[in-house]
């Protein structure tokens, strides 16, 4: 009976209907047209005609460094930012730290991802062609492995918007991840940071990681950097004047034209949502960052005789753990 049953089943399978041609064409059209654009990266953003997202921090990494290291331990469950100089032009990824093996794809590749582990990464995972499945197999009870994927923000995804540093406590427990086996437990954090949708998997070697392992994981998650957009701190009313003063001191050294054109520059500064071009900042780095940014509108009187548009420049500044950061210039 068993053989007969299998014969009848296989025979029925050979005679199953096939998809209708019209339905196939319609589905193909929808699928192909739904292909999202490749993730934006800083070089592409600079070419936009209306909002020239000049990532100044990347160009002057020696002057501005933002990084994240963490002091977590004891009963702390919140990641803290401490100073650590680091250029921002390397693309999203985990900043280097002792005891952690990291690799990131940078922004040159269309599939932007990064991994970090407190065990040596398996060479087969270093190409970042997919989840770090081989390294996952080698996690001991104290092992922690991060797999972070970055994509341009998609209107189809309704992710909560977060500021860096990300918090491990925001991650939810999940039943693993396709292609990754032999791990004790997995947490997943899906959030929007600036203009990026992040999907961060945290694989633990133990089903119930110790407090020390969790603290180490919090520290490493705090080292996850997203380019171009600052880890902005809350602003005080007096920060408008401070930002304006900073920008006018900063401008002569970083002005791209003839330095004499900066002479006599004047500026006005506006905080957060009151800023006239707040929407542009929010578009480029998300509302949380824009809300914590200062718009400084500069007038260069020497250029006013040539062109009103050239004489007016707008900069966005944020207050970070390392000081003021000019994170975008809009025209």
């Amino acid at each position, binding site marked *: 009976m068993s053989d007969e049953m299998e014969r009848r089943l296989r025979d029925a399978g050979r005679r199953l*209907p096939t998809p209708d041609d019209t339905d196939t064409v319609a589905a193909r059209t*929808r699928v*192909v047209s739904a292909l999202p654009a490749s993730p934006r990266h800083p070089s592409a953003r600079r070419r936009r005609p209306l909002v020239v997202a000049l990532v100044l921090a990347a160009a002057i990494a020696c002057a501005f460094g933002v990084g994240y290291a963490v002091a977590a331990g004891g009963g702390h469950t919140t990641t803290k930012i401490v100073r650590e100089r680091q250029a921002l032009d390397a693309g999203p990824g985990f900043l280097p730290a002792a005891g952690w093996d990291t690799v990131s794809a940078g922004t040159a590749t269309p599939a932007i*991802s990064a991994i970090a582990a407190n065990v040596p990464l398996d060479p087969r995972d270093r190409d970042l062609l997919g989840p770090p499945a081989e390294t996952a197999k080698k996690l001991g009870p104290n092992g922690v492995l991060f797999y972070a994927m970055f994509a341009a923000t998609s209107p189809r995804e309704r992710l909560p918007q977060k500021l860096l540093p990300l918090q491990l406590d925001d991650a939810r427990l999940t*039943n693993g991840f396709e292609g990754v086996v032999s791990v004790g437990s997995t947490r997943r954090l899906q959030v929007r940071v600036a203009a990026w949708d992040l999907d961060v998997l945290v694989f633990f070697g133990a089903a119930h990681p110790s407090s020390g392992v969790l603290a180490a994981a919090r520290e490493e998650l705090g080292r996850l950097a997203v380019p171009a957009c600052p880890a902005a701190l809350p602003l005080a009313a007096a920060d408008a004047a401070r930002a304006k003063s900073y920008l006018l001191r900063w401008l002569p050294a970083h002005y791209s034209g003839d330095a004499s054109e900066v002479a006599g520059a004047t500026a006005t500064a506006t905080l957060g949502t009151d800023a006239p071009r707040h929407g542009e900042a929010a578009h480029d780095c998300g509302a949380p960052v824009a809300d914590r940014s200062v718009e400084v509108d500069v007038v260069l009187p020497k250029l006013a005789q040539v062109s009103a548009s050239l004489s007016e420049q707008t900069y966005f500044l944020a207050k970070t753990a390392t000081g003021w950061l000019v994170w975008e210039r809009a025209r």
Partner: protein
Amino acid sequence: METDADLVLAARRGSRDALGRLFDRHWPRVWRAAYSTSGDRELANDAAQDAFLQAASALHRFDVRRPLEPWLVRIAVNRAIDLVRARRRLAAEELADERFAFDEPLPDEELREALGRLTPERRAVIALHYWLDYTTPEIAEVLDVPLGTVNSRLARALGDLRRQLEARNV
């Protein structure tokens, strides 16, 4: 001939032509998996299309070292099961055995009726194993369930079918 991995990488870079070729390559079997699970042409269209749409939006996180089809089939089968259940809820049906019927005739009418009395999960295991030629470990990966669960579902599905067919022939 370009591999799936080549086409996935090209699609990640924005090539619609590459995505179209992936669609052409896998649509028939993904649709068949969806139809086998749902038994309904319209639901199969929706489930299979959803699988490709979901895959297209998540290509950046697909591991190109792994075969593409099981990923698509997995999404399609799970979506088909969801759609069958949603349809039942909408229709306010009260069929305790979750019966369904293929909306197009099969040459083996007895078998068609017996399959219609299986739960979607058991029907999916039958379809993947006998109609799409997946091994049981492959089915476990596709459905994201332990191998033991697949073996159990398969054995119970075959037992159900056998009992039903024997009862008709008594």
